[in-house]
């Protein structure tokens, strides 16, 4: 029994996959807090598809895959920001057009010319295979980049997430903060894509943050709890991936989804109420106690 449980750890590729899944889960969990509270859940889904196009196009352009796909993803993110801010087209529509076009281009290029990088299936659903030193270093670097950015600019990110209009007039450059978040997001999606997969990255960004929102009313607590939940779901999901012979992205998302169901049942209406208005900016305030007229 014990031998069976410990069997995966005999293989270096599984151990590497486990490290990668923990780092990827923690990274997505941390980022997810900002993404969900800003009402940008869809952008994770969209950007992962955009980066897929970069994966396909980079080798054809003679660029290293990581560099090419990263630049492609960041370019897409900034383009979405510019188009959405111009207010001539909605943010959702901008994400839909730009990222699905990039994804379609990626599929066309991979089908026509093949790939020198990760396999098509691995990009779509994630894979335990092929996690080497370079992939781990990229993940570690992305996690450190995100952690340092959010720690050093904690108050500015909190302000621009909660109240961007007032943050802007209080001397914080909301445009710069948005661009920085897009950069962190693009790097993170690039680093996690081969572990979790294009189609499933969005779930690992959204679910841990939603789960911990049901448990706490504290922003700072959400940050570390979502990071921890993402890491734990990554480890458990990767472990199950080996035993069940299912793509790692799938099992990681299913573990996250299970955590969501358990916490939802445990917290009941209170948790649901907290999570329901995560990105809502239209609540009418409560009424007030009495005061006399001037």
């Amino acid at each position, binding site marked *: 029994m014990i031998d069976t449980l410990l069997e995966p750890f005999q293989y270096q590729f599984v151990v590497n996959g486990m490290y990668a899944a923990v780092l990827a889960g923690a990274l997505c969990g941390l980022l997810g807090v900002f993404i969900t509270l800003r009402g940008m859940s869809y952008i994770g889904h969209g950007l992962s598809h955009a980066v897929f196009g970069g994966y396909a196009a980079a080798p054809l352009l003679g660029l290293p895959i990581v560099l090419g796909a990263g630049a492609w993803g960041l370019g897409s993110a900034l383009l979405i920001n510019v188009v959405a801010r111009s207010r001539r087209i909605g943010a959702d529509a901008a994400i839909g057009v730009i990222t699905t076009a990039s994804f379609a281009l990626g599929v066309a290029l991979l089908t026509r010319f093949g790939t020198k990088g990760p396999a098509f299936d691995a990009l779509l659903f994630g894979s335990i295979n092929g996690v080497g030193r370079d992939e781990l270093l990229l993940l570690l670097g992305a996690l450190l980049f995100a952690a340092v950015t959010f720690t050093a600019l904690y*108050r500015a990110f909190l302000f621009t997430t*909660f109240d961007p209009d007032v*943050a802007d007039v209080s001397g914080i450059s909301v445009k710069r903060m948005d661009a920085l978040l897009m950069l962190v997001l693009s790097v993170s999606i690039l680093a996690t894509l081969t572990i979790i997969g294009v189609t499933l990255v969005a779930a690992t960004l959204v679910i841990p943050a939603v789960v911990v929102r049901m448990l706490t009313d*504290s922003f700072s607590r959400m940050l570390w709890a979502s990071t921890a939940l993402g890491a734990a779901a990554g480890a458990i999901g990767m472990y199950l991936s080996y035993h069940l012979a299912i793509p790692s992205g799938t099992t990681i998302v299913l573990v996250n989804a299970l955590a969501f169901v358990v916490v939802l049942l445990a917290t009941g209406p209170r948790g649901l109420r907290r999570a329901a*208005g995560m990105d809502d900016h239209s609540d009418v*305030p409560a009424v007030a106690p009495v005061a006399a007229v001037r």
Partner: protein
Amino acid sequence: MSTEALVRLDHVTFGYGGEPVLKDVNHVVEAGAFTGVVGPSGSGKTSLLRLLLGTEQPQHGTVTRAPGTAVSYVPQLETVNWNFPVTVGECVLMARRTRRVLPWATAEEKTEVAAVLDRLGIADLARRHIRELSGGQQQRMFIARALLRRPQLLLMDEPTSGVDVATRHEVLHLLDELNRDGLAILLTTHDLNGMAAHLPHLVALNTRVIASGSPAEVIVPDVLERTFGARMEVLQHLGMPVVVDSGAGRLGVAG
């Protein structure tokens, strides 16, 4: 610029690419002023606030701010996500600029936040989630956040929009106290009877400044019709103008 002027708008015209939303606007916000800007939706009230804040620049004319003038802004309560995971203390602290790399508040910052919350009578609410506040307490929290920047001028967008009568009274009293302490306040409002009539100075705005002066000078039928495009009657009650919207007539009555 006069030594008393905090911000001066001279012949300001402003728009977002199409027809200007403000044309040839002149206005001076003086130290200690307490001004309400009234006008219909789309009259340029919010654009005026943005120009005073410096987040927008005029197409023509000039906006001049006295050196060293700090301006703070309080948003409409209705635009805020009250479910956001943040406490009253954290919300106020957001406005405190810092160059520190570590995210937590210093002892000095905590003292500052406690002092401003105490000044506004909500010191005991610092650890509460913002959703748990009443309307008046929510407004006090945002004013506390604005005051943390030690402004000379406070700009408020519809501070009594969507609140009940008692909250409106509470907010009016609070603003009066702050103004008596020397803070200049400029706010926008749709509420002629509940808000504007109580203020010492009003500006009627509809793309252009229609009138500027005391409520007795601005809340008069002619100015209201030119500002809102609708005929209204004005009565006097306890020395204050009361606007009666009689233009629509009485509905639902046969014959």
